[in-house]
């Protein structure tokens, strides 16, 4: 499947609080941008895969597949909602890739959308907890920050990872976000600000946590051999991998390893025929700062327990050996959960096309996206390349 599918266009809304827009408005906006980028018309789209975690909970609307096809003016085309908690649109992208690679469709639209701000924060916290084990974790008062705090505490105890190292992840991502006009937060922050921000779930503080956001992101996929009909800079999907793990954190042997990430990365690297050190730029799932440290390790950029070193050494900053989250990551760019997966794709595509402006990673040829659901119960990794090779 390596190199069989290409991304010919991308688009996304700004991520942030869109008080005046509804879910369908956001998705249509992102789609229109992607269509223009791909120089393609909706009538050429053969199928749609839309990632979304909780439209039923947040805005009481399910059945997004036909809803959005309808609102895009193409009722009738195959269109379905894909759900995998915060990895929903990463999964949607994967399904789109499979759909095109299977030969059934030549051009497919994949996207993600989430509208979270129409309810109070405690309500969002409640809905987000449905990505955990509702009966055996959420029922007892678990929240998402709590789950990652449990992981962070173990990571700090087992490997000596420090509070400062976690804070540096947030600082780096905010710095990157300040170069991204679509980011929710474009203001740089300092380690002191992170460490003095209010506690959310000890030891994680407000600035360790990605925000609650609204937004949508869309990518258009085409069979690789017709991609150049639409764009001079197709970006090829070299590898795709998916993994799952136990839904509940307490059923895992070692909560500092996200097996779903290891599995997904293995499949993706193998398909792409690359190794971690071949990756030039990555967009990883920093829902909380600790998650980015875990990503470094579980994706193979660092040995288990040594993720903190990478951030200390500046390896993953723009200008470093392997910039991670040049878009600002979930922390600064925003995290409308169902939209994040494809938003990561959007960034990598721009990077590989040399269109990332102030946050461009020079000579980026191979990029990786890592999108996780819940506390790592699901993960999808994609490896994209500027050349089909």
């Amino acid at each position, binding site marked *: 499947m390596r190199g069989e599918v290409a991304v010919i266009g991308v688009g996304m809304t700004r991520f942030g609080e869109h008080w005046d827009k509804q879910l369908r408005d956001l998705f249509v906006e992102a789609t229109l941008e992607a269509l223009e980028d791909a120089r393609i018309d909706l009538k050429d789209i053969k199928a749609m895969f839309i990632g979304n975690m909780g439209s039923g909970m947040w805005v009481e609307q399910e059945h997004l597949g036909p809803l959005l096809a309808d609102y895009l003016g193409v009722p009738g085309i195959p269109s379905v909602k894909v759900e995998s908690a915060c990895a929903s649109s990463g999964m949607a992208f994967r399904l789109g890739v499979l759909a095109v690679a299977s030969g059934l469709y030549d051009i497919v639209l994949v996207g993600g959308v989430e509208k979270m701000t129409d309810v109070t924060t405690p309500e969002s*916290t409640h809905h987000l907890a449905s990505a955990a*084990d509702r009966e055996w974790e959420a029922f007892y*008062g678990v*929240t998402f920050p709590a789950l990652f705090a*449990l992981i962070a505490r173990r990571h700090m105890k087992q490997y000596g990872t420090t509070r400062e190292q976690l804070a540096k992840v947030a600082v780096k991502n905010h710095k990157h976000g300040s170069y991204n006009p679509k980011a929710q937060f474009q203001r740089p922050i300092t380690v002191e600000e992170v460490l003095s921000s209010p506690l959310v779930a000890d030891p994680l503080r407000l600035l360790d946590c990605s925000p609650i956001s609204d937004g949508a992101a869309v990518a258009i996929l085409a069979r690789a051999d017709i991609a150049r009909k639409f764009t001079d800079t197709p970006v090829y999907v070299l590898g795709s991998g998916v993994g799952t793990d136990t839904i509940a954190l307490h059923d895992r042997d070692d909560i500092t390893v996200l097996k779903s990430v290891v599995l997904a990365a293995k499949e993706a690297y193998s398909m792409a025929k690359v190794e971690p050190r071949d990756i030039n730029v990555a967009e990883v799932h920093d829902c909380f700062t600790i998650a980015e440290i875990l990503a470094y390790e579980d994706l193979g950029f660092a040995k288990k327990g040594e993720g903190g070193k990478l951030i200390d050494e500046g390896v993953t900053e723009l200008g470093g050996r392997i910039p991670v989250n040049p878009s600002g990551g979930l922390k600064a760019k925003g995290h409308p959960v169902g939209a994040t997966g494809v938003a990561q794709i959007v960034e990598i595509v721009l990077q590989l096309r040399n269109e990332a402006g102030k946050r461009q990673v020079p000579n980026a040829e191979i990029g990786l996206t890592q999108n996780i659901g819940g506390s790592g119960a699901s993960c999808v990794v994609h490896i994209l390349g500027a050349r089909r090779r």
Partner: protein
Amino acid sequence: MRVSSMSVPKSPRIWQLAERRYRLIGTKCLKCGRVFIGPRKVCPQCGSRELQDVELPRRGRIYSYTVVRAPPMERENYGPYIIAIVELENGCKLTTEIVDCSPEEIDIGTEVEAVFRKIGEESKSGIIYYGCKFRPVK
């Protein structure tokens, strides 16, 4: 202030698991011996279908913990609370609230025991959910 009770569990869903929560009943795989807190029909470790309900030990140690200060809607006005993964004496791990102590009094490894407590309620006119929480052994 609780706004919408549409997305909190109602009676049947609570009743389905109530006795398991009250008595700390888990599932044991008869083939590989692993014990789980959730009711399982297939062992996630070895795939066996031979599983049996077991009463879990009511003592264990803290494996990791945190203090939740940004609550979900059903816990608004409850104040910060400690959430922990506890490893019971038989190796089974579960997620629970640690009560009757401040966060400074516990750490990874602290021995804890089960107590029967109120987990929440559907609303002031709705049913009450009970279950086990854990507190430090003294």
